[in-house]
């Protein structure tokens, strides 16, 4: 039972990361109808930024979150402005898909060249403190990260729901032409959206750095999990992405507890395919 509870807590925690990544991916998809295949690499860049800020400037990982978010927003906005917006005009889904795939390869290998493939970690004064919650034990950084994740999620909901920019983002994602008609500059919204998506991935990376190793390939599995989250939660639905992220985290830890860690990914992928196909069949039946 204790192991089960512990697995649940770990699942919730890792699920929080999937949620955060998934929500970023989801905003991007909702607005531009493209899958951002370099989302995992954005997480990786966020992790390396945190690592650099910590090792070379001595900034605490949690304090570096705003800095990382700002840098990632800038990077995302730059990519959107120089590469994605011009390509959106060609209306070629294949090209947009491989544009982001290409960016992913580029960032991964740039990280490989700059930081070498070595695994890197950050240690802080509070890294080794553990917290006991009833029968469950967890490291303090994990707990803080989880709380931070929840705060960011709530802030994101609030941003999309109540701020003017948030409303514009939702407007463009619901009806791009209608949004243009009422005077929303959709190109600017694209830039903000992509920047925001990247910033969310970067923040997830910053929060992850404290208890996860940093290496150039770290993003790929997270990136694909974020895609699973988006698909299971429903394209364009932020709440759905949040729930699906938590579900995926729990599925992962519980399946590695029940069927064994080597079959963990197999279980996740098969579940994903089944959900995808079954849902499509249901949708087709309803027509």
């Amino acid at each position: 039972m204790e192991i089960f509870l512990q697995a649940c807590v770990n699942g919730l925690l890792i699920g929080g990361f999937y949620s955060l990544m998934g929500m970023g991916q989801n905003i991007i998809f909702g607005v531009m109808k493209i899958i951002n295949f370099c989302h995992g690499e954005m997480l990786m860049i966020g992790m390396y930024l945190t690592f650099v800020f910590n090792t070379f400037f001595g900034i605490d990982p949690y304090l570096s979150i705003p800095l990382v978010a700002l840098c990632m927003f800038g990077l995302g906005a730059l990519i959107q402005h120089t590469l994605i917006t011009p390509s959106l005009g060609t209306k070629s889904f294949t090209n947009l898909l491989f544009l982001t795939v290409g960016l992913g390869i580029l960032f991964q290998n740039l990280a490989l060249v700059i930081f070498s493939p070595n695994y890197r970690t950050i240690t802080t004064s509070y890294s080794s403190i553990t917290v006991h919650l009833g029968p469950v034990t967890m490291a303090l950084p994990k707990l803080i990260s989880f709380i931070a994740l929840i705060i960011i999620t709530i802030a994101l909901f609030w941003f999309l729901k109540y701020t003017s920019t948030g409303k514009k983002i939702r407007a463009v994602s619901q009806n791009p032409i209608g949004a243009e008609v009422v005077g929303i500059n959709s190109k600017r919204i694209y830039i903000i959206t992509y920047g925001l998506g990247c910033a969310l991935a970067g923040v997830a990376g910053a929060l992850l750095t404290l208890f996860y190793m940093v290496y150039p390939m770290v993003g790929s599995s997270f990136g694909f999990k974020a895609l699973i989250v988006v698909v299971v939660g429903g394209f364009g639905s932020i709440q759905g992405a949040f729930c699906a992220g938590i579900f995926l985290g729990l599925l992962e830890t519980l399946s590695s507890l029940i069927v064994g860690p080597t079959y963990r990914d197999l279980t996740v992928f098969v579940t994903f395919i089944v959900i995808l196909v079954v849902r499509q069949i249901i949708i087709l039946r309803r027509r």
Partner: protein
Amino acid sequence: MKGLSQYTIRKRIAMALLMILLLAIPLFLSGKPYLMNVFILIFYTSTMSMAWNLLGGMTGQNSLGHAAYMGLGAYVASLFVTKAGMNPWLAMVLSVVIVGGIAGVVFYPCFLLKGPYFTLVTIAFGETIRQFVINWDFAGKATGISLPFGAQSFAEFRFMSKVPYYYIGLAMIVGVYILMKIISRSKFGFALRTIREDEDVAAAIGIKPMRYKVYALIVSAMIAAMVGSFYAYYNRYIDPDLMLQTYSVEFVLPAIVGGAAFVEGPLVGGAILITLSEFLRNEFGAILPGINLILYAVVLLVVIRFRPVGLLGWYSQSKAKAFVDTKILKKTDADKEA
């Protein structure tokens, strides 16, 4: 040759010259195994890319799991050879049939999904197969399978020098190219392109999208399985990493860079990308690992950003082609109709 214009004849002569050149290359390079290896690499990567292009470029179904079919083909063939002691050629044929069957049956429901959903399910499918093989005791788990070494023999698909592999690879790429050309001009090819442009229209004029997409996938997976078997026999060693999604991407890039709308696109893209990448890996690989992949990515980004139709698409609209056509191949106005 009756009915053929000057232009067509000259074009065919150019093709024949290229073919003779390719056939003659081993005469000059047989002492340089590294360069021979680059050619073989170009052959099988471009063939894979053509296989992808049938489904991706022609039918518009972007698969990112083609490495899994290739890996599966390699595994099935290697298992037949190592565990059942089967003749490698027969194993190759069986592997092609089995993988085609698996692709058709397992993937049938996945074609209900469209656009991004389809792409995602192909990734998940590829990963599933990889995870399955990693956990499969009989196939050597994560260690993979080594094929037996031994005396050189054509029947055993085992050669000391790279020259026979070169010719087999060349036969493979030429064969698949001709097949693609035939498909592209056939009713089947036109049906696939109709599906790419608009599935509802295709359905309305009597093309069953599901059926044609599955056919395209089966052919594509079969070619991939053939390449996979070739890869296994050539390298004499395979492991589950062969199915990594990064390889799927590497098989797509030649098609995108060369021009996915053209049958020749993957060939042009493959030749350019592999040559550049191998050159960089050779020159800078020791000091800057990953530099060749950075180049891959940069070429891809530049092509998509500035020449979204690919290099061949760009060429076919450029003055260079007009020059080649009119001055060298003596194309006349009458040929434009054909």
